[in-house]
């Protein structure tokens, strides 16, 4: 029974002499491979060459510090609430005397953990944060590891280093050309 018109009837005919001689078909095949010999290669030599990535790519999280190097996070828990994958847990604590240069607000996160196996990198935590403390970097990814517990990132791996020079240069602060590319893309989307 014929259900659609797309089905193709394949008649089992005896092969012609040219088909049985193999050689024409072989030569055609070799022509195809030779074409690929001269075609552009798909390889990207990874450490030297990077795949072009969108400036809005959402990678590994970072907990930002402010200009004086204080942690921005105030452990309000909005990110954990916003998280659709329930990957974020935190424990809030009160700032002690003499810790003013460490934490910006009086309340801070004693522990802050993100389970990278649960995280879907949607960026909702970033949008929920009222203190501009959590961001998803555009240039870093969670690398593969051997153990599951290594994927639970604590504050030691999430908070930015104190030294401003050691901080990620890309990502949140877009470079001029990235900003331009982003603006162009947004304009294109509007049109």
């Amino acid at each position: 029974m014929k259900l659609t018109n797309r089905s193709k009837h394949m008649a089992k005919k005896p092969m012609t002499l040219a088909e049985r001689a193999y050689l024409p078909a072989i030569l055609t095949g070799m022509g195809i491979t030779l074409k690929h010999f001269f075609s552009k290669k798909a390889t990207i030599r990874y450490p030297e060459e990077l795949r072009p990535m969108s400036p809005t790519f959402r990678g590994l999280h970072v907990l930002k510090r402010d200009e004086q190097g204080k942690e921005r996070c105030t452990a309000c828990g909005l990110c954990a609430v916003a998280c659709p994958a329930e990957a974020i847990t935190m424990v809030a604590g009160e700032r002690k005397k003499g810790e003013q240069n460490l934490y910006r607000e009086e309340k801070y996160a004693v522990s802050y953990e993100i389970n990278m196996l649960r995280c879907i990198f949607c960026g909702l935590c970033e949008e929920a944060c009222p203190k501009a403390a959590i961001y998803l970097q555009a240039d870093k990814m969670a690398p593969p590891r051997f153990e599951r517990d290594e994927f639970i990132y604590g504050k030691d791996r999430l908070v930015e280093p104190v030294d401003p020079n050691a901080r990620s240069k890309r990502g949140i602060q877009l470079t001029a050309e990235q900003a331009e590319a982003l603006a162009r893309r947004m304009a294109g989307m509007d049109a």
Partner: protein
Amino acid sequence: MDFSALTSFVISWQSLVILAVFGISLLIATYSTYAERVVAAFLQDRVGPDRAGPYGLLQPLADAVKLFTKEEFFPAGANRALFVFGPCLAMTTALMASAVIPFGNTLLLGNGDVIRLQAIEVNIGMLYVFGVVSLGVYGLMIGGWASNNKFSLLGAIRAAAQAVSYELAMGMALIALLMVTGTLSLREIALQQYDGLWNIVYQPLGFIIFIVCAFAETNRTPFDLPECETELVGGYHTEYSSMKMGLYLFAEYINVFVASAVMSTLYFGGFSFPGEHLLYNYLTSSQSELFAHNVVTILGTVTLFAKIFFFIFFFMWVRWTLPRFRYDQLMRLGWTMLFPIAILNILLTGAFILFFGSKEPKREISKEAVPTEVRTVARR
């Protein structure tokens, strides 16, 4: 016992040529492993190994270090002596064949010495190559049998049956060529084609048969049934590791090199290139004959290597284009297609020679006594 002949041979130019031929065979086989990977990559839109050294040129070295430092493994119940002997034999027979290939004409020295760019000149060169190639299968068979592994054994059996079947068609193709050239010496055959009318013109069908058989004899895809990964794990070298494995791989590439060299010599003019006597005449008008002869010889050697490299590339090109034949297809192709075509080719060649005359004028046997060098110089 007289050793003076031996010592004078050891320090002669000819021994240097032998050493060079040996070294070049090994070098080309080494870089064939690299070329194979690069060609495979390029045909598949990749770039291939490029990490070890500039453009990955040190990759063969890295591979060799890896193979040498791997664990030597002897399977339980293996025949240890034959297990070691197998790869040795494969390598030896592969290297032996390059001895008679003429890599160039002669170089004339100022003091009247003549250097033949060929390890040894025998007047049965073609038979020698054929014999050595037919021995090549022993390395595979012995290694496969001694491994005490059913996959290895099946690989060895396939190798044996395949080699014997395709040797027949190959021999028939060579006989037709022999009828055209009238000589078995590879050097003579190469010299006959100096006018640019290569033997491929006289033997197109024979060449197709020969090249198909060459693929089968070197166990290259589409005829690599003895080491068919999808059915036999690794075929005859399943149980091999370390440098013993390396020797098998190496022997395959040397075989490819030798087959390429033989094909270029027999069908594509060997070290001759079109317009060489024009060049010779042009050079003799301003330079000495000695200089002209040597320049033509060196250019001829370069052309031969260009032809060889093309055929090595061709082997790789086919390997990464065609899928493997099934075993019954292989046998059917060998016996019911190539073999009758080869006999037909002999008949056609015979009829051609009968009606249009042979390519070379009939030579009297007494001429054989004249040294080849003298004749070549005279012919040019």
